[in-house]
């Protein structure tokens, strides 16, 4: 069953917490991975791979550069999850 927006944000928050040590409550739709959440370009690859597994979605490398914020990633996953 497809995940809801709320479930996706919570899942991303867990992933970002695991990778960058940011408190889950600070991971919100308007937050930038790079500027707000201490996720650099290498760690973003880890976030993407973890999100792919968690939400059963494929995120090609070419699309990763468009995922600037938690909101971008959430929208992408909502639209592409199988």
């Amino acid at each position, binding site marked *: 069953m497809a995940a809801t927006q709320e479930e996706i944000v919570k899942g991303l928050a867990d992933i970002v917490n695991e*990778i960058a*040590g940011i408190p889950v409550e600070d991971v919100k739709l308007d937050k930038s991975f790079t500027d707000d959440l201490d996720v650099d370009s290498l*760690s973003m*690859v*880890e976030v993407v791979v973890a999100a792919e597994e968690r939400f059963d979605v494929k995120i090609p490398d070419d699309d990763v550069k468009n995922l600037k914020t938690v909101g971008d990633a959430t929208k992408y996953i909502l639209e592409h999850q199988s």
Partner: protein
Amino acid sequence: MNATNRTVVVTGIGATTPLGGDSASTWEALLAGRSGVSTLEQDWAAELPVRIAGQIAVEPTEILPRPQARKLDRSAQFALVAAQEAWKDAGFTAKAGEDTSINPDRLGAVIASGIGGVTTLLDQYDVLKEKGVRRVSPHTVPMLMPNSPSANVGIEFNARAGVHTPVSACASGAEAIGYAIEMIRSGRADVVVAGGTEAAIHPLPIVAFGNMMAMSKNNDDPQGASRPWDVNRNGFVLGEGAGVIVLESEEHARARGATIYAEAVGQGISSDAHHITQPEPSGNGIAAALQNLLGNTDLDPAEIVHVNAHATSTPTGDVGELKALRKAFGDDLDHMAVTSTKSMTGHLLGGAGGVETVATVLALKNRVAPPTINVETLDPEADADIVRGEARPLPAEGRIAALNDSFGFGGHNVVLAFRTV
């Protein structure tokens, strides 16, 4: 000889070793003659010919924040823990620039390792085979590259005068410190964080060293396995950890009121050009390094009272080193208390020069030489005053100096000299 010939001093020390999570606990164990070698209880070790090692006393992941630690190879984790201790010990309260007593443009870092991020490389190959392409960590390359410990220490303290990584197998840590001394002496930097680190306790390096017939297989007696100069020595015991010091121009140290441990007098370097692993049997290669040290510095053999030997517990290497010391120093060797910290820590490879420099500096500061343990029957060819069993006081008065020897596969010979101020 050098552009400026500035005097270089040691103002901070740090270590994380099989004996303790910092330099104080490591030093206490060294003086007490405690072994840090234990049985490898990991599942992967069960079928190995060598099942003992000097494993780290305090896991670095207990100290470093997890998001930072997970992006660092174990060797870089050790380096960062030791460097943080040394930095704080030197009296710096924040990274360069934020602590205004040190200008980032005048700060360098030189941390070396013998093998680099070997556990990361091998672990990620396992991930590739078992879990597939997508799961290989994007941090793999910056974790495994041998300059990673040095670069991460440089980032940690904002070092912009240059970050370097000399690689010379088991002489790497000492070569790093020698390089740092020259950076300051030549005027390139005022302060350099320098040392060595190694994290190679993994089945592949253990099996590979074992197949070279280089390691002790005394699995039934871990604490007695590393026994430099004992007639029954049969190879080295692998250890892990890091030792890092803060080197500084004397002028800079005095201007900011830093506590000075010792003068870093200089280094002597030579290369054997003999065999890729066997030391040059006459000892001429090592003796040349010692003679270069005397030629490069104002060190007087009469003031050298202590030698922290390379002495890894191998049949030929241990006595070859003593022959070289005799060749270089003659009768002066008789007033040098010679010891091997590897009898307690095992052999930290590229980390050895760092940890043993910390031990050498503390021996001068406290005026006491740690013992060599496990010397039950001294090899009759060991023609030097070996400190056996118990720590030995060094002369309580006057200026004294000590050496730290480090040699590496490839024929690298590095000798560092320190002196009380």
